[in-house]
């Protein structure tokens, strides 16, 4: 499983980093993206959805951050 850790990275840098990291992956790869609570978890998933990726799920960890699971979809 590919992971992209964006904890501690604020908006919109986190989204741009996620974009760059996803560019490296094969189409159809499933990745987990770690996001902080608050603005990041509200903004990043919808921006990635708008870019065409398929969001598969979101769960909160015991430490309080979120794991967004998505499938890379090449436009």
């Amino acid at each position, binding site marked *: 499983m590919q992971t992209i850790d964006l904890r501690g990275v604020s908006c919109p840098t986190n989204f741009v980093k996620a974009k760059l990291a996803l560019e490296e992956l094969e189409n159809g790869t499933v990745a987990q993206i770690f996001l902080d609570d608050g603005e990041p978890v509200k903004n990043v*998933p*919808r921006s990635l*959805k708008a870019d065409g990726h398929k969001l*598969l799920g*979101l769960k909160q960890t015991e430490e309080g951050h979120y794991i967004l699971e998505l499938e890379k979809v090449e436009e």
Partner: protein
Amino acid sequence: MADEKQTKLDLNNLKAGGFIKERGKDLFTVRLRVPGGRMSVPRLKKIAEVAEKFGGEFVHLSVRQSIELININFRDFDAVVEELGEKSQKVASCGARVRVPVACGGCEYNPNGLVDTQKSALEVDEKLFGTPTGHHKFKVAFAGCPFDCPKSATNDIGFQGAIYPTLDKDACIGCGLCAKSCVPKAIAMGEDNKPVFSNDPCIWCGDCVKVCPTGAWSEAKRGYTVRIGGKWGRNPLVGTLFATFLPEDRAVEFIAAVLEWYKQKAEGLGRIRLGDTIIKEGPEELLNHLRSRFPENTVAETIAPQIIATQIGK
């Protein structure tokens, strides 16, 4: 600068206003008409040329999105108007008229935008700009979504883009993103791990629709939330809710209907703004007037524009 003897001014240019007296002798500010704040690059270049030739060292960007040419000698009015090119760059208005509408970028390139505010602002500018109200100024603003960067409720009529969300439970994968994204907390996750929607707190922002990965949330209705009677200045009022989900293409007609009521009801009251007229007449009067033409959009009841006490703590 023009020779005094030869100055023959076309005073028609002054009629609609937009030429504002400055401190200095003979100097005026010329307020340009920039509906919705949209300025094409060629127009901007042209304005820069005219400012360089006739104005001072800078221009001013007004809080209502206009470009103001500073330090223009009144003898140059005609030349300024002509060189700006009457077709492409008009002078704005002041006085008891419908002013140039302001708008945010709207849905064209802003990811939050739900409606085409720029289109609406241009339509209103084209059809209603400069209409005399007979009483006082009249300001209109368009916000693309409930974030409301243009502060629509501080205008005589403020429009705010909105969508009403609807849920298809079967398409939901229970990820919880919608509940997480809904700032007003109109969505909670139920025991079956599916969203539960409460109507009252919902502000129609559409964030749930935008974030939902499966399209389980979609839009049932789209249009403008309309607040009426706001103003700022010495005695600020915040406009209150009069209509919801007004179709975008009926904004001009809606404003015209409000203007009609205002013109009639404020008769004999002197220089009075729309909000104070509503306070005097009661909001039901205006609601009834609007209901006859916009039965599907007019709200069942509302309150008068609300006074904002700005001197507390004095």
